[in-house]
C-alpha cells in the first residue's frame, strides 16, 4: 500500500532574474514500511523532494498525497499537525533546541501533542534515548555532545512520536564513517521492528547498501528506480 504518492510534481525557485527548476515533474510512490533512498549529486533536487514530501515546502505544480490525503491544498495548521503526528525529521545538520537537554529535546514533539501524561512522555523518551545509546548523556545539552551523538538525539526525536514516515536528509553527511554506519544500522533496525517508512537522501554509496529501494535523481528528474536485494 502506498503511503506517499507524487504526481507531476514540479518546484521552481526564483533566483534573481532567473527561475531555478529544482524539481521537474516527478512521479513517485513509496510503500508503507519501505527503506527508501533518494540518491543523486549535489544540487540534483534531493533535499527539495524531501521537503515537498515532508510538507515543509509547497510544489509549484503537481499533487502530493500522504495516506491518500492531498497535502498541497492543506492549511498551515493542518500541515503542522501532519508533520507532528505522521512525519519525523532528521536534518542534515542536527538542529536540536540548544537550550534543552537530550531528554527534553526528545520529549519536545510529545509535549507539543498534549495527549500523553508526563510519566508516559518521559518513559517513551528514555526508552528511545537508551536505544540510540545516549542514556548516560540524557541531561547533556546539544553543545556538550559530539556530532554523532547529536544526530542520534535527532533520530530519537524523529521516532518518539511513532511516525509513519521518517525523512532523513543526508543523515550521515556530517558524521565519520563509523558513526554514520551505526546510525544507519539503527534506522534499519527501527524500520524492521516498527515498520516505519524511512526516506533518506544521500550521495554516499556506502549508505545505499542499507536501502531497499533506490531512486536516482538528476537535474530535478527521476532517472531510475531500483529495488535492491541485500
Amino acid at each position: 500500500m502506498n503511503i506517499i504518492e507524487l504526481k507531476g510534481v514540479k518546484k521552481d525557485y526564483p533566483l534573481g532574474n532567473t527561475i531555478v527548476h529544482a524539481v521537474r515533474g516527478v512521479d513517485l510512490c513509496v510503500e508503507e514500511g519501505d527503506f527508501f533512498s533518494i540518491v543523486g549529486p549535489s544540487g540534483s533536487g534531493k533535499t527539495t523532494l524531501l521537503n515537498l514530501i515532508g510538507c515543509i515546502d509547497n510544489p509549484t505544480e503537481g499533487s502530493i498525497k500522504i495516506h491518500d490525503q492531498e497535502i498541497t491544498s492543506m492549511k498551515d495548521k493542518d500541515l503542522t499537525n501532519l508533520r507532528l503526528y505522521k512525519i519525523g525529521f532528521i536534518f542534515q545538520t542536527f538542529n536540536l533546541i540548544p537550550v534543552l537537554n537530550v531528554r527534553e529535546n526528545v520529549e519536545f514533539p510529545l509535549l507539543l501533542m498534549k495527549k500523553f501524561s508526563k510519566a508516559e512522555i518521559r518513559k517513551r523518551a528514555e526508552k528511545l534515548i537508551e536505544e540510540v545509546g545516549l542514556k548516560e548523556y540524557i541531561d547533556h545539552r546539544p553543545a556538550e555532545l559530539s556530532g554523532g551523538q547529536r544526530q542520534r538525539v535527532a533520530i530519537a526525536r524523529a521516532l518518539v512520536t511513532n511516525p509513519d514516515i521518517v525523512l532523513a536528509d543526508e543523515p550521515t553527511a556530517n558524521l565519520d564513517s563509523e558513526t554514520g554506519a551505526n546510525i544507519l544500522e539503527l534506522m534499519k533496525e527501527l524500520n524492521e521492528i516498527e515498520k516505519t517508512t524511512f526516506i533518506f537522501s544521500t550521495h554516499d554509496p556506502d549508505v545505499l547498501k542499507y536501502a531497499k529501494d533506490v531512486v536516482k535523481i538528476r537535474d530535478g528528474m527521476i532517472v531510475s528506480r531500483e529495488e535492491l536485494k541485500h
Partner: protein
Amino acid sequence: MGIIFKIAWRNIFRHKGKSFIIGVILFLGSFIMTAGNGVLSGMNKGLQENIVNRFTGDIVLIATNQRDEAVVGGWSLTPTEVISGYTNIKAILLKQPYIESFLPVCRGFSMILNEAGDMGFSGLLGVDIDDYQRMFQSNLVLVEGRMLSSTERGVLVTAGARKAIYNSMEMWLTPVDSPFILSNLSPEAMSNSNSLNIQSNMVLMGMSADGNQLDIRVPVVGIAKYKYLDSIWQGYSILDLESFRECFGYVTAQDTEIKISEEKERILKEEENLDSLFEDKNIFQKVETKTSAYQIGKIKPKRVAISTNMDRDAGIYNIVFVKLKRGYKLKDALLKLNIELSNSKASAKAISWKKAAGSIGDMVSFIKVILIVFVALLFLVAAIIITNTLSMSAIERTTEIGMMRAVGADKSFVAKMFASETAILSFFFGGLGMVIGAIVLPLISWLKVPAGTNDFLLLVFGGDYFNPILDTGDIIAGILILAFVTVLAMLYPVIVATRITPLEAIARD
C-alpha cells in the same frame, strides 16, 4: 514548568547580552515611569493640599457676567464683577449634601497712595478672617504684629506685598503697636535703613468699575505670609470685609442696616416722580466753587468697630470658595451646582478651581502634560528599542524556530515562546524598576528637598518640599502601562518569528 516557559527562561540566559539590554531599558522605563507617577501624584496631592484646601476650595462661584474666569490666579487689574443676592446663593449652597464648607469673599485690586504722590498696587481679599482661617486650615501665619480680628477694621499685609510696596513707594509698613524689627527688612529696605519711611497704616483706593470707590485709611494690624505657596499668593493682602466694601464702593453690611422711612421709600418707588425731577431744564446752575486741595494726610482711619450683630451676608461679595466633601467628583458637583444656581436664577456660576486659578491652573495642567508626555515618549523609545532587539533576535534564531515548526510546533507556540521571553524580562526588570522607584520615592520625600521661592518648582513639588508619593492607583497604572508597553514591544517580533517557515531554517543551513 511548561515547555514554553522553560525554553523562554533558558533562552534569556543563553542570550545574556540581549536580555540585559532589554532588561535595562525596561528597568529604566519602569523606574522613570514610577518616579514620574510619584511626582504627578505628589504634585496632585500637594496641589490639593496647598491650592484647593488652602486657597481656592474645589469650586469657585463667580458672577454670571464675569468674563475673565481666572478670578484668583489671574493677575489682571480688571475689576471683579459682584455677585448680588448672596443670601439666596447661600441658601442653595447650604442645601447641597456634597458641599463641605464655603466662604464668600470680596476680591479686587487697590491702589496704595501716600502723601508724596507715590502709588503702589495690591491685591486684596476682603474676608471675615476667622472664617477664612477656619476654611483654609489657618493658611495665614503671622510674621509681625497680630492677627486681624473679625470685629475690627484693618489690613494684614503679606510680607511679599510689604516688600513690593517698599520697592514702589519707599514706604516700610510696620504693624500698629508693634516694635520695628530690623531683621525683617528686605535687602532693599536694609540698604536704606537709616532713613526709612515707616508707616503703620495705608491709604487704599479700590479699583472698581463703576467709580464709586473711596480712599480709605486702614491700620496695618499685622504682617503675614501664607503657609504654602506664599510666593504665589503673597499678592493678596487681607482686608476686613467692611473696609473692603467701602473702599470699592460696594454695599456694606452697615448700609443694609439703614432704615428708610416709609415716606422716602414711597417716593423712591414712584418712578414718575423721579423723572419729573429732571423735567426742569434749568436744574443746573453755574456757580463759583472753592475747593481746598485734596490731601491724603487728612484721610482718617475709621475707628468704628464692626458690629457682630450685623448681617455681613447682606453686603456685596465677588467670589465664593466652595469645598466639596471628600471623594465627591468635581465634575459632578459642578454640573449639579450650576443647575441649581441656574434654576434659582442666581447671579452666580460655578467654575472649577483650575479655571479660577487661571495661569496657575494652566501651569499645573501644563506641567502634568509635560510629565505624561515625557514618560510616554520614554516608553515609546523603549518599545522601539525592545522591538528592534527582539526582531533581530527572532531573525538570528531562524534555524531554531524553523526546526521547531518542522517538527510540529505551530505558530502560536512560537508566538507564546517569544511573548514569554519578553514577559519574563518585563516582569523581572520592569518589576525591579518599579520596586526601586517605590523605595527611592519615600527616600526623596525624607530628604525634604526644598522648592525655595521658585514658583515652577513650588508647583512641580506641589508644596514647599519635593514630596513624591505613590499610591495603589499609581502602582496598578504602572503595571498596566508596563504590560501595554511589553505587548506593544513584542508585537512585531512575534509577527516576524511566526512568519519563519521550516524551509527558511533548512535554507539557512
